[in-house]
């Protein structure tokens, strides 16, 4: 079907949607591919109608939110139509006294944060680039930030969801109360499902009260071993930091660029953040400072509020902000206590690529990310393969979160993994038998 025919059919079917084709498609690209048309539905029902139409016509469809994480996943095997969810940006129901919030999927995290701040509440989902990132996109990618240490990820915060499904139209699961076991928890399919089973249209969250007190500190260590040992010591104890990040030497320099706190040499930083009552924050800051000093950190600095914001926002957006974009981002996941080993794998990958990565790690969750500005594509295929083999020995895995054009799908973004492949394929087959949604982008070619 021609681009014009698709656009016409969409316009006829969706009276309120904005339909784009031809020159109007500038900026609507996915993994370097340009769709034949794009549509910006005005309602959740129009999203469902679009999917129904796509199923009938055999179009391949990719949903787009703020476009901040479109690099995640393999390039689509087919792409006819982009669905832009940005018009679905309403706050549907906010009950501050119940600590619950229902929003449409296209709302940005920043807008939400501002709304909740008026009531001293938070949705502790600190995903990269909140000014642009949308709830739907963040959930589909299962994006998370430093605060996931304390508050968990989207799966721990979502209590209800409506999604548009190719075969069923709009379907809800969960509800608006904080505790609920009625029906299957279908939201779990869509969180991290990269829009391959349905398109998230509306989400209900449980919220948290904003903490009255905040504090943070940075300790620099001469070696990763020392920094990692102190991190594990903190995590094993009774303190409960809101965030705890390991920052490699090159990433530390990049984060501090332009500020007075620029580190010298090959030092590993441990950045820790506390949220809670003032007294509890004070106590934790003191205890962690002591642990760092005992753990041979030559320098431990408590951060001023603006330094804290700058550092943790920098970590959250690392490698994704326009001014310092990484070309290749690899995420290694292992058990929390093995985080140093995951970092070592990324370092060895750097040697294979003849370019040392900038490294950030979240030892409480067992993840480490390596960021490369200019990797050598030819070497990358082999290097990623070797890294995966090393991580597999630890029971871990490696996801290519971003790669230069042409590298995917020569490298599978997700890697081979697990005995539940058959079950995942059956889910895809059951919910999207015609392969309408994001074909080829997810695990195992789904």
């Amino acid at each position: 079907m021609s681009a014009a025919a698709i656009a016409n059919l969409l316009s006829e079917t969706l009276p309120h949607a904005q339909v784009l084709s031809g020159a109007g498609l500038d900026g609507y690209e996915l993994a370097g591919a340009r769709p034949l048309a794009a549509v910006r539905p005005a309602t959740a029902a129009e999203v469902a109608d679009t999917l129904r139409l796509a199923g009938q016509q055999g179009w391949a469809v990719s949903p787009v939110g703020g476009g901040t994480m479109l690099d995640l996943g393999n390039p689509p095997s087919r792409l006819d139509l982009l669905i832009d969810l940005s018009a679905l940006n309403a706050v549907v129901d906010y009950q501050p006294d119940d600590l619950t919030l229902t929003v449409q999927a296209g709302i940005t995290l920043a807008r939400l944060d501002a709304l909740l701040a008026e009531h001293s509440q938070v949705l502790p989902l600190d995903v990269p680039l909140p000014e642009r990132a949308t709830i739907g996109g963040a959930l589909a990618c299962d994006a998370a930030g430093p605060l996931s240490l304390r508050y968990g990820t989207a799966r721990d915060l979502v209590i209800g969801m409506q999604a548009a499904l190719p075969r069923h139209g709009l379907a809800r699961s969960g509800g608006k109360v904080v505790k609920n076991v009625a029906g299957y928890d279908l939201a779990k399919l869509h969180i991290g499902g990269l829009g391959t089973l349905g398109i998230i249209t509306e989400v209900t969250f449980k919220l948290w009260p904003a903490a009255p007190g905040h504090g943070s500190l940075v300790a620099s260590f001469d070696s990763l071993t020392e920094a990692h040992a102190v991190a594990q010591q903190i995590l094993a104890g009774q303190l409960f930091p809101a965030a705890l990040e390991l920052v490699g030497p090159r990433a530390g320099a990049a984060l501090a660029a332009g500020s007075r706190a620029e580190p010298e040499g090959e030092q590993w930083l441990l950045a820790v953040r506390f949220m809670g009552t003032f007294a509890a924050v004070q106590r934790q800051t003191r205890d962690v400072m002591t642990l760092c000093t005992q753990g041979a950190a030559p320098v431990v600095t408590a951060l001023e509020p603006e330094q804290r914001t700058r550092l943790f926002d920098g970590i959250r957006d690392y490698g994704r902000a326009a001014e310092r974009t990484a070309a290749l981002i690899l995420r290694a996941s292992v058990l929390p206590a093995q985080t140093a080993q995951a970092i070592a794998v990324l370092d060895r990958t750097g040697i294979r690529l003849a370019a040392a990565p900038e490294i950030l790690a979240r030892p409480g969750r067992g993840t480490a990310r390596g960021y490369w500005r200019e990797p050598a594509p030819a070497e990358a295929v082999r290097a990623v393969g070797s890294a995966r083999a090393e991580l597999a020995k630890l029971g871990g895995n490696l996801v290519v979160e971003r790669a230069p054009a042409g590298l995917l799908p020569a490298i599978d973004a997700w890697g081979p993994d697990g005995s539940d492949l058959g079950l995942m394929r059956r889910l895809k087959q059951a919910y999207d038998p015609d392969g309408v949604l994001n074909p080829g982008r997810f695990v195992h070619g789904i």
Partner: protein
Amino acid sequence: MISRRTVNDLQKLLGKANVITDPGDLIAFEYDGTIDRGWPSAVVFPTTAEQVSGVVKIAARDGLPIVPRGAGTGLSGGALATEGGIVLVMTRMKRILELDLENRIAVVEPGLVNLELSKAVAKHGLYYAPDPSSQKACTIGGNVAENSGGPHCLLYGVTTNHVLGLELVLADGEIVRVGGWGRERPGYDLTGIVVGSEGTLAIATRICVRLLREQESVRTLLAIFDSVNAASSTVSAVIRRGYVPAALEMIDRVCIKAVEPVLHCGFPLDAEAVLLIEVDGLNEFVDAAASEIENLCSEFGAREVRQATTKAEREKLWAGRKGAFGAFGSLFPNYYILDGVVPRTQLMRIVDEIYAIGERYGFTVANVFHAGDGNLHPNILFDERVPGATEKVLEAGGEILRLCTAAGGSLSGEHGIGLEKREYMPLTFSPADLAAMATLKAAFRSEPLLNPCKAFPAHAGCGEVGAGSHKAQPLAADYYV
């Protein structure tokens, strides 16, 4: 009915001692914690995942449904063999297989009793957070099936927030591992899908759970009120003011009258309601939070607030909360417990209306519930020997559930839909919602083999479980909820 061949094959697979078919023995498995009954054709006790897989294959071959069962404490009829078939009892698979102290995770078999895990790791200063009131008896496998909660889930989350991975036997007998087992892992969150699926999608044979570090300090407050309304509005106020206690429970006058003379836990007999509020964390936090919450309670009309600081004092108060259900026996021979959830701001109105419904039907209603997250447990007290009483109880229960859903709430906070509430599902879910959920069963190819006709409205092929076949539960002294 079950054929000689099926029984022989089951015996060959599991050993004669692990297959029950004698009616005198089967009767012990016709009930769970609800007021329904279901008669199985056979009850089997596997000890390995391979055996579970073997049983599944035999059942599939011979067209017999499988009903997975833990300790049988379930409160929605999920473990009843209402369609006949094989009850698969997991209680002989109860080992702790791995304890990874560094990463604070454990791998356990599904038949392990919930509290046994916390006891086993206590010497390392760790515990398993989800704490259903039946935790002395219920199994972690059953908790996974129901996505069980408990008083301390207010702050720490329910079962799904603590399960990191599962080994599953699928309906075709295949054994698969899902989830990251402590690591982040790409792919669909199959663990999250299976937790809470009430045994209808797959059978868990290994469970990887997160363990938590015991808190530095714990304080339990007992706030005593002269009106239920004042207690309800205090609950809303605590949440609104930005406190999320570890637990926030309400116990009303009827419960106090039942529990206090038996357990002597310190609930005043002349109170209309008490709140049990627990805060935990660092010393600095607990001290401040406890005194602020105490002030709030007084501000909202508590006539007295007591603080329990020692472990013994705390345990006494919690014994009163967790033993409330067993104590109902001193008032009435039977009780019917509900599990609806409402937005926390509506607690006051809903609790009022629940009492009114009880009055209208001529029943005493006892409320003991997880007030902090709006999860109500009204208990309708009755005597099943009175003709028509059971039917009337179910009718009153239905009215309470409709009240909860009309308030924007849920049919169940932690007990599951099972058999009991399946026909109420259309109150909160549209046909499209239910069809989308049914598609999950199609993907798992688990229907009609695994726990058929549970959790969703009955369809053609499901046996009749009308009001006529309901029977009330006998009360045992140590019967927990």
